[in-house]
């Protein structure tokens, strides 16, 4: 087991190194002079003198690889440099400031995701081909086809403008997170309902379910205590990956709902060509994905040791 963990950790390190290089290369391939970009963002007319001074200030006069290794070694100490857009702010501080907002949004979204997809998924399995199941299928179809920015505006119109229940933008109270949370979870809800429904339907044919019913247990008890417990394993794994997707999927939603999280930071950085922020964001997201994959792999292996053996044999 220890050998397997070390192997996976080493692979994760190599992947992260590649992610860091790709992040640096991609951003540097953008056909724009970062010095001029930095001036433009700050509304400074890009005179030759100003560009030369900015190039020196940003260290752009050094060779590419030297800049990469400088950036990498600083990044390892969580120093991603200074934002072009806000020259008085460190990128690491910007990430640290934005992350809690995104985490809150992802958290509320996850709660809504579980709170909605779990009962709906179970019910549509229990009442297969019932009118409720048909409505759920229609809902799944509609929510998959609907772009999330459009859904966001529909929710704002409905809950903010017409019903006046929830605020349309901002992030000062937890109520501010409900509409963006609903929008965000809607992109994943169809998948989870289907996943839970299918897992439940598979469980229904199992012998332990028949045995439970034969023991005279109530249908509620059979569904929740026996079928659900066994069906949740697959869903939980998918949910583990889903959490990272939720964090990374906030770009459009945070912009519409004016939540100052990681997604909005990234979008602003893309529009402003704020290279240091963009590089740090790509690296952070890469780390998050690699880390979550690693944890899931290790958990899988812990639960089912056959996977480790299969992996070793390959």
């Amino acid at each position: 087991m220890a050998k397997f963990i070390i192997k996976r950790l080493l692979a994760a390190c190599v992947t992260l190194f590649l992610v860091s290089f790709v992040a640096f290369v991609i951003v540097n391939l953008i056909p724009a002079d970062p010095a001029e970009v930095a001036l433009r963002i700050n509304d400074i007319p890009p005179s030759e003198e100003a560009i030369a001074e900015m190039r020196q200030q940003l260290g752009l006069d050094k060779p590419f690889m030297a800049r990469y290794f400088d950036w990498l070694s600083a990044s390892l100490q969580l120093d991603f440099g200074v934002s072009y857009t806000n020259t008085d702010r460190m990128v690491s501080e910007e990430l640290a400031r934005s992350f809690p907002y995104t985490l809150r949004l992802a958290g509320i979204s996850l709660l809504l995701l579980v709170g909605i997809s779990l009962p709906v998924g179970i019910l549509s399995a229990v009442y297969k081909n019932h009118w409720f199941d048909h409505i759920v299928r229609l809902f799944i179809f509609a929510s998959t086809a609907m772009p999330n920015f459009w859904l966001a505006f529909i929710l704002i119109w409905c809950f903010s403008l017409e019903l006046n229940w929830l605020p349309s933008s901002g992030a000062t109270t937890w109520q501010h997170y409900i509409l963006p949370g609903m929008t965000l979870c809607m992109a994943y809800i169809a998948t989870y309902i289907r996943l839970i429904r299918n897992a439940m339907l598979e469980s229904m044919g199992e012998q332990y379910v028949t045995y439970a019913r034969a023991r005279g247990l109530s249908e509620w008890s059979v569904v929740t205590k026996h079928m659900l417990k066994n069906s949740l394993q697959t869903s939980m794994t998918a949910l583990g990956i889903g959490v990272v997707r939720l964090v990374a999927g906030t770009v459009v939603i945070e912009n519409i709902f004016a939540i100052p999280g990681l997604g909005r930071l990234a979008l602003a950085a893309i529009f402003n060509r704020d290279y240091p922020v963009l590089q740090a964001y790509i690296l952070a997201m890469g780390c998050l994905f690699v880390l979550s994959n690693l944890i899931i792999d290790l958990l899988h292996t812990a639960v089912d040791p056959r996977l480790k053996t299969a992996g070793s044999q390959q």
Partner: protein
Amino acid sequence: MIFKKMMGIGCLLLSSVSALTPGLSHADSEKTLTIANYRDIRDLNPHLYSGELFAQNLIFEGLVHLDENGQPEPWLAESWTVSEDGKLYTFRLRKDVTFSDGTPFDAHVVKSNFDALLDNSGRHSWLESIRLMMEVEKSGKESIRATDDYTVTIEFPNAYYPFLVELGVTRPFRFLSPGCFKNGTTKDGLDCLVGTGSYVLTSNVVDQQSVFEVNNNYWGEKPEINRLVAKVIPDSQARLLALRSGEIDMVYGLQLISAQAYKQFESDRRFNTALSKPVSTRMLILNTTSEQLADTRVRQALTHLTNKAVIAERIMLGLEQPADSLLSKNVPYADIELTAFDHDTSRAMELFRQAGWVSDNGTLKKDGKPLNITLSYDSDKVVERTIAQYLQSEWGKAGINLDLIGEEEQAHRDRLKAADFDISFNISWGTPYDPQSFMGAMRTPVYGDMLAQQGLKEKKQIDQSILAALETVDESERQKLYTYILETLHREAVYIPLTYEQNQAIFNSRVNGVGFNPSQFEIPLQRMSVKE
């Protein structure tokens, strides 16, 4: 049974949401105005350039203010004189001004602020006045001197008339309390944000909202609005929805409101709208070094082919007026008589014919080669794309192949700077930077203007005239020089003026007295009020 229980879980979830959201805090009353901006106020250091201008205007003041006509009027300086040769400016300061931290405002504070600016002169190299002050400093003399506690003199090596206008724009000539300086200067950041302005910044949650309250130490008349809350809402649709739901009172600014949205609110009785005078010119810039456009007659023909009225009415929905000249007549020195290039297809075809371009099966050709022209635009700007597509269709009817190149902002700017275009969209700098800064930039490769004008026989004379206009102290001579520049660029059809941009505001019935200052970046709260 299961159905009921499961639905119960769902209902519990929904009811908990509605129970915990009993009421929404809408725009506060108590003389509070809530507005929306598309981004954070960022670093408000007025000696640097990254902060939001509207916020800097609330906190920091300068020696002079630009009145509604763009003319300098007293502000922190109660009067000033300019020597006959235009090289020495003497400012007498108000004696009743203190910063919001209680520090008195005097000549020594002015001197220390100017010294801080000169300490970072490279950053301000776009300003001719800073360059001139540095020239004096490098000669071993002091350009800025505090001759007594309330008198400051500023010396230049030669006359430079736009100095008073430059002092009136938001940055960098605004004053900070010396107690906020870091390492004795301002280029490395600030320890605090303290100005003499009518408002102070009381709180700022990055990327969420900023709150400004009236400065109790303010030396002048206090504004009626006690509190300004500036919320950050990046998405334009979300901003308008927040206005409709009452979460904000007003959306104010150039480029924050689309023409369609403005029209919708204009016809909604619950809201009011306001439009400023023209603040800048939307135009096409024609590259005179381009093979196809080197001939003046071709450029003039394209100008005649452009139907500005249709662009103003159908694309801009009447919110921008058709532009007949490079600068609107309300811009200083631009109120001159120029014969507009009317939309006249037959005149255009005659000019093409004179230039050797003849129609062959519906395509204009010269020596067997078709007239292919490129038009580049910023793909992020929907208006530019729409106008480009309209021109492609209209000019196509005259036999011109107009190829459109839509690129993201920085690539578009790079193309402009490298003069790698036939025609491109351009915009003047807007009031109060027009005409002096806009024309000053035509002498240096800041944007595309200088390179695009290189094909003109009179380019050298245009540049000399710009410099002379900036340096002369004779008002009529200056007018004559600007007239020459504007007439030449007009006659040579280097620019096709399309429309004049106007600042816009949409606000609810709580807000009164909404108006505009000459600077498009200011929100004149002094004249506004809100119902409690």
